[in-house]
């Protein structure tokens, strides 16, 4: 089985984002960018499945600006076998919407015929939590979102999902789209030799036009603003003072 893993280049999760003064968006020029943390977990899972003999090949694909190549190299250094870069934007501030991403991924799936698509449950920039589900819909495939355990069993996969009430186990027919949650695994760091090796692994360069997919947005961004600011309150000296404040000042207990 071949596993396809879509990976997104996003602002590093440690960076404090800055909203641009003119309300046009978030400043992404000269900030540290990394692989979306959930996608790292998906890459790790695919590699582990290959190591366990459940998969033969791991193909990673990224859709966005040319610089996403670095993200793909990271995935190759972790252990993916080859990569596909689909350039769909010139400006680092352009975010390709999940619907368009899903359409491009569908085109890649049609070509590559993977047995499973493993993706992150959400990207930490637009926090949309949509691409995997949309791709499953376009393919007419089964979907298992928010996975914290995946077991492949012949033509099915058993997936444990993190849901509001706790956990849910479902059995999905393959091929399937599985979106991964935080506790599925801990991604490995790429070793220096593997980083060197990754430079020689195949990376195919395409554009959205090659697949005939229109990536123009359906959502017009009217404005981007700072959230209402919360001011720090006071430091209390003792538990007694805390209880007093909660009772008599805030009135919440």
């Amino acid at each position, binding site marked *: 089985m071949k596993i396809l893993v879509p990976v997104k280049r996003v*602002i590093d*999760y440690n960076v404090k*984002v800055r*909203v641009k003064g003119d309300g046009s968006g*978030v400043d992404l020029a000269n900030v540290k960018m990394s692989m979306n943390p*959930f996608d790292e977990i998906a890459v790790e899972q695919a590699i582990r499945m290959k190591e366990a003999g459940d998969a033969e090949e791991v193909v990673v694909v990224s859709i966005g600006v040319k610089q996403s190549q670095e993200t793909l190299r990271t995935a190759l250094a972790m252990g993916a076998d080859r990569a596909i870069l689909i350039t769909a934007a010139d400006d680092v501030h352009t975010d390709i919407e*999940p*619907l368009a991403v899903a359409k491009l991924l569908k085109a890649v799936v049609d070509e590559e015929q993977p047995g499973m698509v493993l993706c992150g449950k959400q990207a*930490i*920039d637009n*926090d*949309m*939590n*949509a*691409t995997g*589900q*949309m791709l499953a*819909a376009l393919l007419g495939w*089964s*979907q*298992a*979102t928010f996975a914290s355990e995946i077991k492949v069993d012949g033509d099915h996969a058993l997936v*444990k999902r993190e*849901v*509001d*009430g*706790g*956990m*849910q*186990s*479902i*059995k*999905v027919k393959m091929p399937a789209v599985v979106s991964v949650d*935080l*506790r599925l695994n801990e991604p490995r760091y790429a070793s220096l030799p593997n980083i060197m090796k990754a430079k020689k692994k195949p990376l195919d360069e395409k554009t959205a036009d090659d697949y005939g997919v229109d990536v123009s947005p*359906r*959502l*017009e*961004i*009217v*404005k*981007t*603003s*700072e*959230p209402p600011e*919360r001011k*720090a*309150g*006071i*430091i*209390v000296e*003792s*538990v*007694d003072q*805390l*209880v007093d404040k*909660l009772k008599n000042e*805030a009135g*919440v*207990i």
Partner: protein
Amino acid sequence: MTVLLLGEVDNGTLNMDATAKAVAACKPLGDIHVLCCGAEAADAGKEAATIDGVAKVLVAEDAIYGHRLAEPTAALMVSLAGDYDHVVAPATTDAKNILPRVAALLDVMVITDVSGVVDADTFERPIYAGNAIQTVKSKDAKKVVSIRTSSFDAAGTGNSAEVSDVATGDAPGLSEWVEDHVAESDRPDLTSAGIVVSGGRGVGSEEDFAMIEKLADKLGAAVGASRAAVDSGYAPNDWQVGQTGKVVAPDLYVAVGISGAIQHLAGMKDSKIIVAINKDEEAPIFQVADYGLVADLFEAVPELESKL
């Protein structure tokens, strides 16, 4: 204009809080029809009919909708969507699973986790873990929208809307439910509780997390946790508060042994009053806390519990 709203039905029971908050969010959008589906959904439908602002309730009761698997539920919603301008659901894990599938089948870009409804086409939603609020205007003919329930007050009850059955579909045969692993609890639900007490990595162990639960019980509160506490096995996954866990906005949020990473703040910074107990006076949580107590939690928490 009419809205099709997916009611939150969990094993035959309506989640009133989530559904009534989503109804309130949809008020400016037009008449609201609530769809209740499940292996059992008739009782949930009756409940939904009592929510103020609901014009009609549609019930789809069939074993194929049991556990609300995404594939059959999305197919049902798509079969009904023709008559509606908006397809909406509260942003629970079920809806997060189902709605993007519905949107893609309708060739619409989904708008998730909406925290403000500006007009029929325009919505506000938090991005970058709530560090920015984006206002987006949809160019799609139909809008598929999920609602961040913590941003809205629940609609009242007392209504008696008309309830009717709708035709159910065929099972797509793509996925099967196997089992739920759900811990029953008498505590209030995390997303609707008036008070939440959360513990972080500082609590140190699953055994000591009982201290957090004891404090919560004294306050009649729900229990939450940071990702680090869940990852370390101190608390179950469904207690996680944050960017990728639950979003809460109680009257009182007590953060114990939590540093205040942006991903955690994303889930609780809209709480009315925030209390932080942390031994590190530099911890970022103090920057959003109304009342901060710099103390060792192993002393402060039992003392607080005893003085309430």
